[in-house]
């Protein structure tokens, strides 16, 4: 499998109460196309920080990130977020005054990636695929259950036709059955559609179902 994302000597620290806290230390790692990764680690180990950095929401103090052989600084973080990646959050992060289908369309409207014609139908089909029927797709998102909202968030992450999907505790607010269902979707996305899924989680259930478990400890990533 080819390499999709490469982290090279990433360092990240911040000042907290007058003291410098080093979160990531010379961190290097290589992610492959079509694999489902889970990143584990104790609370405060910097999992979400790492996710923010590799998702282009933040920048490291030093080190380089390469996406499909290109430095993301050269691509531009904004363009990188728009065209290369999608993020699924624990809180779903849907826009409340839009319907489910409109939230999916939102991602489609922002990307420069080539998308199939008839975007609205594509959005409905995506939602349908993740169990959101048309009648629910036209509802405002706050009228949906937590599991349904997370499915909408996953559908939105796929809508922009990117190959790299990040998820930060995507099942943190869901019951076990729904959690399994969501992880099943991620597996399907990586294995059937060749998407690279990188999930930050505390959940053993989630990590057990991934292709590669990685531990973030002392600012470095180690395969488990």
């Amino acid at each position, binding site marked *: 499998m080819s390499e999709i994302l490469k982290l090279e000597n990433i360092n990240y620290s911040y000042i907290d109460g007058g003291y410098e806290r080093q979160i990531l230390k010379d961190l290097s790692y290589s992610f492959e196309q079509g694999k489902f990764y889970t990143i584990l680690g104790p609370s405060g180990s910097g999992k979400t920080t790492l996710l923010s950095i590799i998702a282009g929401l933040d920048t490291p103090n030093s080190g380089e990130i390469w996406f499909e052989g290109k430095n993301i600084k050269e691509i531009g973080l904004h363009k990188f977020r728009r065209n290369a990646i*999608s993020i699924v959050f624990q809180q779903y992060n849907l826009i409340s005054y839009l319907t489910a289908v*409109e939230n999916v369309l*939102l*991602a*489609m409207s922002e990307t420069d990636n080539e998308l199939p014609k008839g975007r609205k139908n594509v959005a409905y089909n995506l939602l349908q695929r993740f169990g959101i029927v048309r009648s629910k797709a036209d509802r405002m998102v706050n009228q949906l259950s937590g599991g349904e909202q997370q499915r909408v968030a996953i559908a939105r992450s796929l809508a922009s036709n990117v190959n790299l999907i990040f998820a*930060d*505790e995507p099942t943190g607010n869901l019951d076990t059955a729904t959690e399994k269902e969501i992880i099943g979707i991620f597996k399907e996305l990586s294995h059937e559609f060749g998407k690279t899924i990188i999930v930050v989680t505390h959940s053993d259930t989630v990590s057990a179902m991934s292709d590669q478990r990685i531990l973030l400890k002392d600012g470095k990533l180690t395969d488990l």
Partner: protein
Amino acid sequence: MNFINRAFKNVTRRLSKTILLVLTFFLIGNLVIIGLGISSASKSAKILTRQKMRAVVTYQVDYEKVWRYADTIEDEDELQKFYENYPRVKVEDVTEFLKDERVKMANSISSNMWYSDENNSLDFVHLGNTREENMDDTGQSCWYDESGAMQCETYKEPIFFVKSNMYPGMIEFEDGDYQIVSGRFYNQDEIDNGSMVCVISQNLAATNNVTVGDEIVLATSYMSTYMKQSGVEASDIENSFEVIGIYSHNNPLTPDNSNYDYASPYENPDNMIFMPSTTVYMAQLPANEKTFDYYAQMYPEEEYYQNPDNRPSIENMDKNMNIDNVTLLLDDPLNVDQFVEDHQNSLSQFTSLDANNDEFNRLAKPLDTLSMYANFIVWLVVINAIVIITLVTALTLKTREYEIGVLLSVGASKLKVIAQFFIELAIVAIIGFTMAVVSGSLISRQIGNKVLEAQIASSEINEEEDDYGYNYIDPWSTDYTTDITLDDLVSEYEVTVSPLIIAEIYILGLGIVLISVIIPSFMIMRYNPKKILMNQN
């Protein structure tokens, strides 16, 4: 789902917030419309009234300045010298004014009362009134003879009013009060040469069976004893004038005028004769020369009569023809103030241009005050609106941080986020202002009229009553200004919401929105999506 679409969805789906903002803009809009309406009505009323006034500017000696200056001179000789060279309006200044394309013509009028010749070959137009029946009972004309004794004789009533101008054309003709019905008015060549030409009334021409091209004989004076003693002969005072034009006029003296019965023949507008000022000077010159010489002989000790510069002559014509003031007719009443401003500084110390605006400005004061307050209110409301909307937007931003974080995380640019906020506010502003245009149109007139009434009452403008109470006929008067009353101004005051005001309110509204979005925009530009979303999570 682009940012415009999102803005519409936000406005239509967050109705409570939208309604509150629309109401805010509606209230702001009403206040602005009322303010703009009143201000615009005040300005329009002034412009419309000013347009009704004659576009005249008077060029004259500023007597107040002369007197003030004279008061500062302590040395008697110096004061005497100053009075000998009393400031006068300058012909060169008038020539300069006439080069200004805004000036249509200039009136520098002198008036004389003349007679027919000894044979009464030119009859005047008769009114058949009481005065004409008692023409012989006109009082005494007295003078001192060589021995210093007073001599008196019966005064002979003049019958023609000769109105002369130093410049071609006259404001009276330009205004249409007088119209040339046959022939023409005198021209610059005739003024320069002092040609013996005149323009007479239609009725005078009919009375004497005169047509254009005919000649009439007029006497500049009657042959008094004093004239005879001076050696003046009939040929010195009688001149033949070619009638080059015949006019009609709109000011007939009719029996319903209270002055009709006592009007002298020369007060009858039909007996008015127009000719160049130089022509009048030339016609009067022979008699004036002889009487001057007579006085010079009688009073050898009088310095004035011994000075050859003072003797009436063709050479001394310019000096002898004093111009008291010149009235300039401009192309547009609205150009008057600017014209005065443009030329005032180039004038000498003791002459001035008067826009004849004092009364107009005095009466327009309530409108000016009203306009000033209205503008003040508009700006106060606009500034408050900016502050309020900025605060509302900034506070709303805090509650929408999460949404901004999501938009940024899916790759929306910060500029698009700002544009969405701008469009959202612009939509509610347009709705609010549109409602305000409707309601403002209905209430601004009532409020505008009430405010004007209150303003007039508080400014205590009192109009002066005409003491005479009747239309007094004064052929000497060359007052070209237009009388304006407070009613004239108030009748033109009408508060309406014009398309211009509507355009102004939308532009102001969008300006308010734009400025109100600037500060929140800085906040958005500083937003870090990671921090927002991590805080959320």
